């Protein structure tokens, strides 16, 4: 999985490419605290993301919780399959999806 960061002041866009699964999610989880420092507006771009498992969902949930305290977070360009996962798990109510 590739993690591509685009920072603009207090705005940060993280573009994920490939699979966010049990293998890759811990890596993202490890990087997140550093990445999110001082960020007010966080955007996850899932344009190139193929797959999210529950491990990935947990990382998203933890990011959302961090952003709830310091700003806002949106997820965009979610494909149909991942959208279905969000819907099934109730993440559509937790995340802001554009």
């Amino acid at each position: 999985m590739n993690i591509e960061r685009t920072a603009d002041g207090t705005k940060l866009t993280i573009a994920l490419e490939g699979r966010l699964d049990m293998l890759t999610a811990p890596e993202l989880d490890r990087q997140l605290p550093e990445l999110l420092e001082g960020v007010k507006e966080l955007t996850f771009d899932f344009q190139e993301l193929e797959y999210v498992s529950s491990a990935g969902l947990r990382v998203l949930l933890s990011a959302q919780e961090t952003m709830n305290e310091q700003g806002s977070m949106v997820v965009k360009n979610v494909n149909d399959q991942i959208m279905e996962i969000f819907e099934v798990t109730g993440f559509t109510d937790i995340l802001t999806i554009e």
Partner: protein
Amino acid sequence: MKLKSNKTVQEMSKTERRRHSLAAKTVRSTVISCILFGLVAELVAVAFYAYSLTKQFISVADSAAHQAVMSATHGADALGFSEEVMKTYNNLAAEDRAKMGTDGYRELFSGLHIEEKGGEYDVLVNMLAGTLSYYDVYDVYIGMYDEPNGRLIYVVDADPDMETRFYPGDWEPVSRKEIKKFLAWNGEGKLYDIEWTDKYGLLCTVGLPMKNEAGEIASFMLVDISVENVLVGMGEFALQLTLALIAVTLLLAWLQTKRIKRTLVEPINRISEASVQYVNDRKNHVSEKDHFSNLDIHTGDEIENLSLNMAAMERELEEYEADLTKITAEKERIGTELSLATKIQAAMLPRIFPPFPERTEFDLYAMMQPARQVGGDFYDFFLIDEDHLCLVIADVSGKGIPAALFMMISKTILQSCAMLGKGAAETLTKMNEALSTNNQARMFVTVWVGILEISTGRLTAANGGHEYPVLKRKDGAFELIKDKHGFVIGGRKNTVYHEYELQLEPGDIIYVYTDGVPEATNASMKMFGTERMVEVLNRIDDADPKVLIDGVYESVNDFVKEAEPFDDITMLCLTYKGAAKSETEDSDPSLKSADNGGSGTTLTVEAVADNFPKVVGMIEEGLNAVDCSPADQMKIQLAVEEIYANVTNYAYAPQTGNVTVTFATEEDPKAAVITFADSGVPYNPLLKADPDISPEVRRRTKGGLGIFMVKKNVDDISYEYRDGQNILRMKKLLP
């Protein structure tokens, strides 16, 4: 009286009943006894009558004789004439005497001049005839006996019938008895003789001797009495008496019947009617009472006693019946409670076999056959945890309800102690402590308890006075294990129990039982015995516990046959099949073909996150081969990931172990089947509650999310723990 049929009295016809009438019987017996008495009385009376009549006649005849003697001796010379006749007779030769009755003979007495009117003979005849007519006797005559020849020689005969009159010198034979009696008479009383003679029939002769001056008997004055008169008189008397007796008999019979009817028949009939009424009322369930008490019979005899006894009997029957109803109700109640107790007791023992169908490491079977409705034996088995199975067999002292109650307590205490994770020995020690305190009934229980560590086959057992267990090694025979016995449970306070260990290998069988098996006794008082029991087990030689137990029970029944079952028969048997082997030992992480005809693949890897791509790769490869849509691919991958993550995180923590993933496909309907097998701690992830995914509680539900996603993304998922492995199988239909 013996009845010919079994009819009761009221079923008989009237005529049949009359046959037994007491009144008729009384009349009959009265008449018979009166007739018998009358006959005897009449005989006595007639005899007495005849005697006194004869006496009177004799008296009359005697008077006539006296009168005749007086006149014949004073008014005539009877003596002289007598002597003259006798002299003539005595001088006759025997052959002349034999001529008696002929004219020639009479010629011989011509010297007496009997034809001479006014002569001696004539005077005498007239005198005697006068006496005869005066006294109205049969005959008056003078005669003398010729003793040597037994004859009476007539001197003068006043017989009014000239045809039969004797003339002086005529003679006829008379009995020597009469002669002797008359000649030897001493003058006391009256001289008479009654004799049967051919010529005159019954003849009574009264005599009076006439003596000359020398005192010798010259002749006898003889008077014959008409016996016919006596007979006629007697006949008349008897007739009158008979009539009188008949009248009296009839009167008596009538009176007696009346009396009997009043004092005997009627009261008996009333008792009889009361009996009939009593029987009918009982038949028709009429609750009328006092059938006999209301009779009011006061005959003052046995009949009154009878009626009093019947009344007493009626009262006692009533009381008895009331008691009986109570007792029967009580018995029914106890019976119902007993059958309930049986049901409760039966429900106490686990009776569903196989008890743990998902456990493949052992086969288990048990049975309990109580000798009575409720027994004192019990067996038990339960899982203490996933890896520990507790086996129990026990026998409570005594039988019936007390034993059943004690059994309940024992079983409950034992299970509570064992479930706390205490070992076999400590369980028994605690149980003894509980049961021996306040054990007022002095009951006890023998217990064998074994705790099997399923994964290793280590059996820890303790024995509280129970029978030796039987063990069969895989390739050996059934043998008794002479294990170390503790004292019976509940028998003595502060007893400490010790445990021992048996290492069961796959194929080993352990069999425990209560004394009902070896002590089953047949009709000739022989016991089944442990030797025979072990022999039967070896003969059956089957690994299935049910086959073994059924076989032993059958041969016990064959042995005992018709004899009354004496004790409960309880058995428990376990075949250890060994912990399920995982396939980790013989595999390096490599792909290999699955069992099901090559339509799938198997991968065994160390369960760590780094190996996940290998697993996903295999699944992807498999799914690509069956042309799976990307959406389904992702769903399957999601599920696979969650399960794999579970295994890596929990199965072997903190160490690691292997996991075997099998991918297979099915046709009709088309589906992918993925199986995960690991030898880690038994754990069923499906039991995890679905997470509440609402935002408010999401923090707490983090852990359940994965399995929830698995459930959402596949069509079927199942878990089992088999052969020591957690096996999770999921299926996704592929449209």
